[in-house]
């Protein structure tokens, strides 16, 4: 885990919580590291990846697919060379209208950074709770984005130089189509590069 220690994660969690004005103070009892896999996929594609791709504007050529599997969500982040678009498909294991990908988001890339987090709120988990998913632009040198969840910290690995798709059930304000993510960006040694709140609105 790149020398990332439990102590560092706990400190990050408390600091992130404090930065968002939540008062912190809740002891982190667990941390979870998401898996990540990067593939180059030739279009057209089949299977779950193909069903996600069908919801994007990519129809030909080769795309880069970053797959993350976490506690609540599985996501695909998809981009294509020379295209200004990046897409994300989100799944929680709970289909939306019989679609395994309950959420799809599209973002514009400028210098490989999205201009908006592209918040997605249509997904629910197995307990019926709304799951918020959003993009985070990784800082130079960022190896992880740590997201404070209700009783744990979840680490999302950076990959392929693309925005990182994160998710949470904490901080979801569904009434206002908004979510607040308490995050920190960490380098490969677990040092904090930045910390704070990402407030995202469903928009566009």
């Amino acid at each position, binding site marked *: 885990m790149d020398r990332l220690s439990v102590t560092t994660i706990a400190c990050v969690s408390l600091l992130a919580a404090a930065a968002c004005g939540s008062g912190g103070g809740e002891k982190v009892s667990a941390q979870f590291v998401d898996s990540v896999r990067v593939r180059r996929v030739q279009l057209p594609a089949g299977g779950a990846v193909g069903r996600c791709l069908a919801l994007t504007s990519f129809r030909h050529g080769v795309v880069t697919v970053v797959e993350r599997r976490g506690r609540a969500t599985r996501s695909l982040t998809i981009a294509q060379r020379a295209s200004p678009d990046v897409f994300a498909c989100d799944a929680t294991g709970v289909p939306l209208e019989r*679609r395994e990908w309950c959420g*799809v*988001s599209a973002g514009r890339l400028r210098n490989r950074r999205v201009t908006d987090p592209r918040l997605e709120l*249509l997904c629910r988990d197995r307990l019926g709770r709304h799951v918020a998913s959003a993009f985070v632009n990784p800082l130079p040198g960022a190896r992880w984005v740590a997201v404070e969840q209700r009783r744990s910290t979840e680490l999302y690995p950076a990959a392929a130089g693309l925005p990182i798709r994160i998710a949470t059930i904490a901080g979801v304000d569904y*009434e206002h189509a908004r979510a607040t993510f308490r995050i920190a960006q960490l380098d490969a040694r677990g040092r904090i590069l930045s910390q704070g709140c990402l407030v995202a*609105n*469903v928009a*566009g």
Partner: protein
Amino acid sequence: MKPLATFSVTFALALVLTGVTAARTRTFQSANCNAAAPQPTASMTRDGQMNYAIIAAWDGYQWGGGCWNNDDHDAAPNDPPQQYTGGEGGDCSGFTFKTWRESQDASNGGRYYWAPLRNVHGPYTAEAFKNGSGAPNGTVYKPNAIAMDGFASTYHIGLVFFRGSGGWDQIIEAKCEACGTNLFDETYRSQSAFSGVRRIGWTG
């Protein structure tokens, strides 16, 4: 300084700072918009919703927004694009959500009247509308799209107000911060990036 005096000074200072902060962050939404419950309605006609939609014309555009009055004046012009700043107007998806009388519950296809000054965006982006996500949303063959059907791309949605000929239609849309919300002649029907979308459940 005695404890009571210390407390009094501190309390007074806190009151002053609260007032300063409140004045600095007052927006069109915080000053004018409400959170009233939507009204379930048994009917929803295309003519009726054209009348509803036209109220928003000239009343601004707000990224992630969903609240406007009917004074034909944008109370918050020149907001930074793609930033949620609490200004007047909806964005394209928020405007469509309200005009189509949708529920915030994506599994609910019922009809709900949202007053113009009710601040609500809804859980859908243009991409979600394009994919027909949510119980009230479907797709339609573009040549068959009529008034109050929509054309949606990955990043934008507009509603047919008057069906034109020769490849253009008069579209009512929350177009952009600089453009505002208004009627525009558009060729979305003939653009491959746009798909036809339709609110399910019109009664007239």
